[in-house]
């Protein structure tokens, strides 16, 4: 439809749509929203009705709401405001386009498949309203399509290959400075008197959460917090670089006041700002030309998974996902619940899941431990279930990074060396011999001596009683025998990988020698002649029945 307000010499009224990219620094598309505009408004759209249904826990909502408060506060300083609109984008935008006589819509490019689909629909709708749409990439360091193109039109599936491709590209675009007062002054933002009623940021209670007794947030959302942390983070690096590099120690299991991952995920911190700050710090300290790629290791991992996922709408599931090995995971809701709620009877696992639920962040080695325990290490439950729990609880779980990491750790994609198994007792003990991490997150075990705190079920009754925590009564018995479980699971993984060895190359343990003849697997009623991990579904069960007659 032709928008009635479009005529000659029309005013340029911009709407910038925040989704991720919750910041005013390095925000190229926001700059374009303001550039030459007569009026501009920044909006965030959320639907409180879906807050309960969405797989988003209280810590994630709280972080987001704090980030929105921070944006609003920064915009206030620039004599503007954040407009939080309740509803769904497809319903909200037609209304806004009319009410505000919008001529220009801007938003940051979202490379995730769901995001691309949603945005495609919005762009189309905007066109119908005669609204110009501007989209710019600022959530990833590079243009992901370029990386894919440089790799023969398919995303790199090994990190080394990814690094090789990236090393040949130009450096990421330099970050832009924050929106200035001047830029904002050139466009008016009409702020109604009832702005706080109409466009306010909802509270946790309004989203349906109960907040009595909610402990304070360990990670505070928002751009200001992000930039503050960035500075402290870089200070620390200088200190560290001049002395000894630390190994992973018990302190790093705890939330760091300079940790940045949740801020990157929500876009409170620009990845390019981080990239260039690291680069410049390195060059200052080392007086050399270019830093090795390993300096940006963690940023590149994020980029790697985004690239792998951007064209794969099935990236977050096993079925119909071309890169995912089809593994016959068990379905066991009871076992899954014990894991998710930190009631496995393995203090190391339970402490980690408790920290995750309480705070929204756990160290990457802790993630490896619980992911391995849930999937190929012990419980043999699908990585999709674990991914969903992380999505709910983990502040820095990007869709792409979360799904990709779970596939990696469960040996479903990208990685095949399934002999690496993290013992839920030994690995914890080696990471934190003092057991203090356990005592902190599972207080009922605090009086256990170091010797038994990782395996309280092995402590003599006298020790258990003295610690006031009897296994099977106060604290659960271990839900699985790890030796037996891992033995079984190694066999299962081997069964799966033996069938793939022709296509994937050998992985250790997959090719245990056996006599060839008479060991041929018979046919299933699915196709065996195709390669790759996919399995076809039964097209029609009725048909099978009929031909048999």
């Amino acid at each position, binding site marked *: 439809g032709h928008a009635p307000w479009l005529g000659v010499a029309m005013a340029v009224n911009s709407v910038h749509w925040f989704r991720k990219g919750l910041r005013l620094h390095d925000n190229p598309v926001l700059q374009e929203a303001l550039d030459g505009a007569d009026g501009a408004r920044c909006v965030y759209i959320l639907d409180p009705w879906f807050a309960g249904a969405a797989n988003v826990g209280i810590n994630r909502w709280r972080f987001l709401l704090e980030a929105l408060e921070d944006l609003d506060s920064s915009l206030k300083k620039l004599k503007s405001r954040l407009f939080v609109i309740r509803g769904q984008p497809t319903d909200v935008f037609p209304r806004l386009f009319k009410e505000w006589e919008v001529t220009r819509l801007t938003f940051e490019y979202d490379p995730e498949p769901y995001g691309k689909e949603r945005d495609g629909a919005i762009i189309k709708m905007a066109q119908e309203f005669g609204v110009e749409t501007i989209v710019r990439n600022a959530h990833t360091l590079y243009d992901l399509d370029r990386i894919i193109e440089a790799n023969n039109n398919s995303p790199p599936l090994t990190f080394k290959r990814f690094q090789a491709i990236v090393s040949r590209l130009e450096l990421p675009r330099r970050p832009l400075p924050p929106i200035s007062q001047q830029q904002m002054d050139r466009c008016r933002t009409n702020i109604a008197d009832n702005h706080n009623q109409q466009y306010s940021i909802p509270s946790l209670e309004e989203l349906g959460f109960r907040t009595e007794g909610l402990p304070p947030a360990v990670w505070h959302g928002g751009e200001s917090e992000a930039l503050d942390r960035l500075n402290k983070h870089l200070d620390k690096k200088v200190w560290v670089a001049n002395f000894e590099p630390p190994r*992973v120690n018990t302190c790093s299991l705890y939330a760091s006041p*300079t940790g940045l991952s949740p801020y990157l995920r929500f876009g409170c911190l620009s990845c390019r700002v981080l990239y260039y700050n690291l680069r410049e710090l390195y060059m200052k300290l080392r007086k050399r030309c270019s830093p090795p790629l390993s300096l940006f290791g963690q940023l590149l991992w994020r980029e790697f998974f985004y690239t792998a996922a951007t064209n794969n709408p099935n990236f977050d599931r096993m079925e119909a996902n071309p890169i995912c090995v089809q593994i016959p995971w068990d379905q066991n809701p009871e076992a899954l619940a014990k894991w998710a709620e930190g009631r496995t009877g393995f203090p190391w696992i339970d402490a980690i899941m408790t920290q995750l639920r309480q705070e929204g962040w756990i*160290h990457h080695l802790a*993630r490896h431990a619980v992911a391995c325990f849930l999937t190929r290490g012990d419980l043999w439950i699908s990585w999709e279930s674990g991914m969903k729990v992380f999505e709910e609880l983990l502040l820095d779980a990007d869709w792409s990074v979360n799904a990709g990491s779970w596939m990696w750790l469960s040996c479903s994609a990208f990685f095949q060396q399934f002999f690496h198994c993290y013992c839920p007792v*030994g690995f914890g003990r080696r990471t934190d*011999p003092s057991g203090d991490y356990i005592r902190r997150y599972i207080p009922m075990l605090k009086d256990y001596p170091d010797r038994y705190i990782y395996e309280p079920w092995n402590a003599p009754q006298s020790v258990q009683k003295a610690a006031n925590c009897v296994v099977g009564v106060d604290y659960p018995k271990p839900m699985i025998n790890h030796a037996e479980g891992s*033995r079984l699971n*190694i066999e*299962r993984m081997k069964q799966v990988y033996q069938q793939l060895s022709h296509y994937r190359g050998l992985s250790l343990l997959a090719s*245990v020698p056996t006599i060839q003849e008479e060991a041929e697997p018979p046919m299933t009623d699915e196709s065996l002649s195709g390669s790759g991990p996919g399995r076809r579904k039964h097209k029609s069960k009725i048909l099978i029945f009929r031909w048999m007659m």
Partner: protein
Amino acid sequence: MKRIKGGEEDGHGPPSGSPPEACKKVRTQASEESEAAGASDAPVSDWARLPQELLLHIFQYLPLLDRAYASQVGRRWNQTFHMPELWRCFEFELNQPASSYLKATHPDLIKQIIKRHSNHLQYVSFKVDSSTESAEAACDILSQLVNCSLKTLGLISTARPSFMEVPKSHFISALTVVFVNSKSLSSLKIDDTPVDDPSLKVLVANNSDTLKLLKMSSCPHVSPAGILCVADQCHGLRELALNYHLLSDELLLALSSEKHVHLEHLRIDVVSENPGQHFHTIKRSSWDAMVRHSPKFNLVMYFFLYEDEFGPFFNEEVPVTHLYFGRSVSKEVLGRVGLHCPRLVELVVCANGLRPLDEELIRIAKHCTQLSAIGLGECEVSCSAFVEFVKMCGRRLSQLSIMEEVLIPDNKYSLDEIHWEVSKHLGRVWFPDMMPTWVPFCDQWRSSIPWKKQAAPWLHQKGACTSGLT
């Protein structure tokens, strides 16, 4: 997937068979028909008249579902569909929607196979999920295979071992049906099942001449005497998999007796039920007898023990070729491995703990001259020692899977340099394995800034918390 050679469902290339003759036959037949019918071309009728051998040949390429569709074309094609050759192999997939994501073989299909094709079945396996119902369904099917003369039987649990939940008598009686009727079983996989000594006796009584492969790891109801009976009678046995508690000197001697063929693969799982469990020892002389009798045999050993349970192992020479440590194993034990495992081909260490394995690895490189594959998980090795190890092994190392965190940079090499050195000695490009570091910027920043090249003092401070950093 391995295919049965000889034409069954080999998607990789032309199967053996005689296509040229069959084609000739079609051409002759077709030309005869067209002569008879006159000048009219009737291509449709050629399809219906394809000789059965050719149809069979084509059907062998098709997966079952496509064959089923094809069988509906007409009577001829339907007849071909039911030819015995197409029913030699079957894998029953038994899954419940509540316990598995995979779909199951249709129950009607199962009924029809039992009714029309059970006497054609020769290579059969059952894949069951973790529900008891699936395992019971497998037993029910087994019990009905009375006219079968199976060559291969495999009972495979894809998740938890559900055969162990089936009432023992039900399982045993089902299995016995197969043992008694088959009489020519060559390959039997019954790991994680409640098979017992008496049923093994039945197996032996009926199939001792033909049995070549027997896999029965984690079968708790079998005793050493039970398996000894198998070794004593089944002289054609070439591959055996069992748990360590079933292994005895007598068993090894039985397998090395003159009447016995060469054993090719022996797989032993050593699993600890409770911490502090005691394991018996096997005499060196028994192992020596095995090696003398079957000089090329592979001995695959999987250890799932606590660190302090390794006392009985690796004190004397043992002919292990493939060795896997599924839990943490001490430096000391790895040192013994270096001394006493001259036939070692593959070594995989899941975890060791934070003390560098420099000497142990070098000793292994020196004494295990057949070593061609090694995997290290949660271990530590200094870069120099690692380079030395690779240099000593050289190009025989076809598989080198080391997690990046295993390698400790030292005076001579940093992480960025090491992969060149190793690649050089291996003769191919090599990188350590990586795990995604999800979390940007925790306190670990090991590889990013190469520090001054000095021996790192913290290397010997296990678990030291440099609290000044946070």
